[in-house]
């Protein structure tokens, strides 16, 4: 199970470093470090098409370095600073992983219980 988590964190890191391996994307991060921008602003600043900039922002977003939010028709980007409490020891992460997993399992069990009750009633009729 710890293995799962190591793999996951490694993947997250790989994505972050791959995202940073590109000059334009590093420039975008620097810009977002100063202020939030729309994709249109960024495209103009870096002399790119909207489609091209959207792709770069998509890579940064997948890597968890940037978050975007649509306000009306404009998509704004801002740098994602990890909250300090996200950086915890592995045992805390482990605890959180199981807690989340079991919350999902609770949902599945509720559905199963409801189905069993329905089937039971049908059989009794």
């Amino acid at each position, binding site marked *: *199970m*710890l*293995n*799962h*988590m*190591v*793999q*996951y*964190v*490694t*993947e*997250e*890191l790989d994505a*972050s470093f791959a995202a940073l391996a590109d000059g334009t994307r*590093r420039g975008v*991060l*620097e810009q977002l*470090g*100063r202020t939030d921008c729309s994709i249109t602003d960024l495209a103009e600043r870096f002399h790119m098409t909207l489609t091209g900039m959207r792709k770069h922002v998509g890579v940064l977003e997948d890597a968890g*370095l940037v978050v975007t939010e649509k306000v009306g028709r404009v998509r704004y980007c801002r*740098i994602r*600073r*990890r909250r300090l409490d996200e*950086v*915890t*020891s*592995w*045992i805390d*992460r*482990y*605890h*959180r*992983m*199981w*807690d*989340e*997993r*079991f*919350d*999902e*399992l*609770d*949902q*599945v*069990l*509720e559905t*199963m*219980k409801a189905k*069993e009750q329905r089937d039971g009633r049908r059989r009794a009729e």
Partner: protein
Amino acid sequence: MDADEQSEPTEAGHTVVERRSDREIVVTRMFDAPVHLVFQAWSTAELFRQWWVPRSMGMTLHECEMDVRTGGSYRLNFGEGMDFFGRYLEVVPSSRIVWTNEEGVEGGSVTTVTFEERDGRTLLVLSEQYPSAEALEAEGGALDALEETFGQLEELLASLG
């Protein structure tokens, strides 16, 4: 496994994690459902895949093959050659499942899950046993090291601003 009475959760929805020894971690949780259903959710691939991957992990379980019987094997594939696999050492319906985790480089851990009836509810106890204290520390340590790298990346990002 020696049950530690103090650590048993009595209310549903509360997960307890503890290091029992330098090579064992135990997770306990009470479920508000009968034992046979909880066992079914653990031993049926279609149900298992609905809850096994926490959303915050952002991973997708592409394939989930489980032959849940003593001597059977399982394989979980998350794409890109990321596989988790092992064998079931013991399966007793509605009671316990024991499996090996063989994807690691060194000797892997053995996971034991037991399901116990408690007034119509189910007490689930999951234990992960590592072959040595070093093996557990190696994986936990790897995670802490990765977290540290993340921390450095954050600092770099903050300095860009």
